[in-house]
């Protein structure tokens, strides 16, 4: 599991995962791309988040997913969640958001 927050490495891994889930060549996905430019729709976004959750052992809340519109949004969001996860090392693995 990757707890390394090296920005460059993290970005590289996220770009690779986006490319893999979208069946694109790695070079086709850059940090500056919007999802629209990459032809990524909302269901694709959910699929990418699923892959990232598995890769980084994080849980992305539903509301967060709706606000992600670009590769940069995705990188920022994942980085924040990894930081949060590392802060609560002794907490159980799945902090579900409160219901209703």
């Amino acid at each position: 599991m990757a707890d390394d927050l090296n920005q460059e490495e993290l970005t590289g891994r996220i770009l690779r995962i986006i490319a893999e889930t979208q069946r694109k060549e790695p070079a086709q996905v850059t940090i500056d791309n919007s999802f629209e430019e990459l032809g990524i729709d909302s269901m694709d976004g959910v699929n990418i988040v699923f892959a990232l959750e598995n890769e980084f052992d994080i849980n992305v809340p539903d509301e967060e997913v709706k606000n992600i519109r670009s590769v940069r949004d995705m990188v920022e969001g994942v980085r924040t969640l990894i930081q949060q996860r590392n802060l609560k090392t002794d907490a159980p693995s799945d902090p579900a958001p409160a219901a209703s």
Partner: protein
Amino acid sequence: MRRVVVTGIGVISALGKNRESFQTALQEGRCGIGPIQDVDKFDLRFRNGAEVKCFDPFTYFEPKAADMIDRFAQFAVVAAREAVSQSGIEWTEELRETSAIVTGSCVGGQATENQGFWDVYKLGKTRVHPMTIPKTMANAGASAISLEFGITGPAFTISTACSSSAHAIGQAFWMVRSGMCDAALTGGSEAPFSHGILKAWEAMRVISPGLCRPFSKDRNGMILGEGAAMMVLESFDHAIARGAAPMAEIVGFGMSSDAHHVTQPSAEGAAKAVRVALQCAGIAPEQVGYVNAHGTGTTVNDITETTALHLAFGDHAKRLAISSTKAMHGHTLGAAGAIESAAAILALSSGILPPTINFSECDPECDLDYIPNCPRKSDPEFAISNSFAFGGLNAVLVWRRI
């Protein structure tokens, strides 16, 4: 072409275990949504569902008969019994031989399938229950109804996700209208509350962490529901000849496929199904007074459906009274088209249109009249029920007050 009428309806849902409790709840705007049973065991991002509460199969079935069918098929039989009882139809030998059964179900016997997978994958057992296959099959509801009444005519099940039972009712309508049979039992049933299915819906990120708020600006997703609605369709002449009192007439059925995206709906596809249904009914858009909307409460569906109604109804869209009763009974997937058709028929026959409850704020992108929160007295002659499925398969039914 023969006229086709509804002579009996049965409903079991989160709003109660019979038609009367369903109608009362709709007219009171009561919400059937609450915490899913045993939800704490499931590790989910949402907690609520619209379950049929306190359903004891042994109240309805002999113990051995209850063991033979999954919860979703039990719902199908319970609803079918009520529909048959209300219709007063007598299953003569001839009628049993010719009548049709057409049911809808999206996921079939999930509780049974889940138990089998749990036994194998989790508990490491080497065998599963021998009834796993026949209890899981999506047509188990149709088969159980056939056994219940001894009906030996054409019987089958349609599985088109959330449009399943609307497609089923449409098919039964055609069969009676064409003269292929005098009577049909049709509708849909669903019982999707298994751990595996709940996790799958969680993964799609379309379930509300709170309530279902169709067309309201603060809507944040759908709520899963379970239940069944079945109805007896008969040719008008057959019903009148035996002295039955029809509740409503089914006059139109429209279908379309979006050919657009597997999960994103298309306004044009939905509008096309509405247009085809009105054309089939031979009525003008201006004659429709009430729309029981698909109205799932997701951001995308409710905007797309609103656009579709604008496209199909033009200026008249603003004058339509529209509600999504899913805010009360949840999204019952393959049973949705039948349960919501029942709501539309009961609205026409009672003159009380059910509200869209949990509506708190207008959304500029949903700019029609959604009957917010309070039921409304009104006597429209025609109502439509919309069903739009994942996979882009749409079905719209047109009902007429009698």
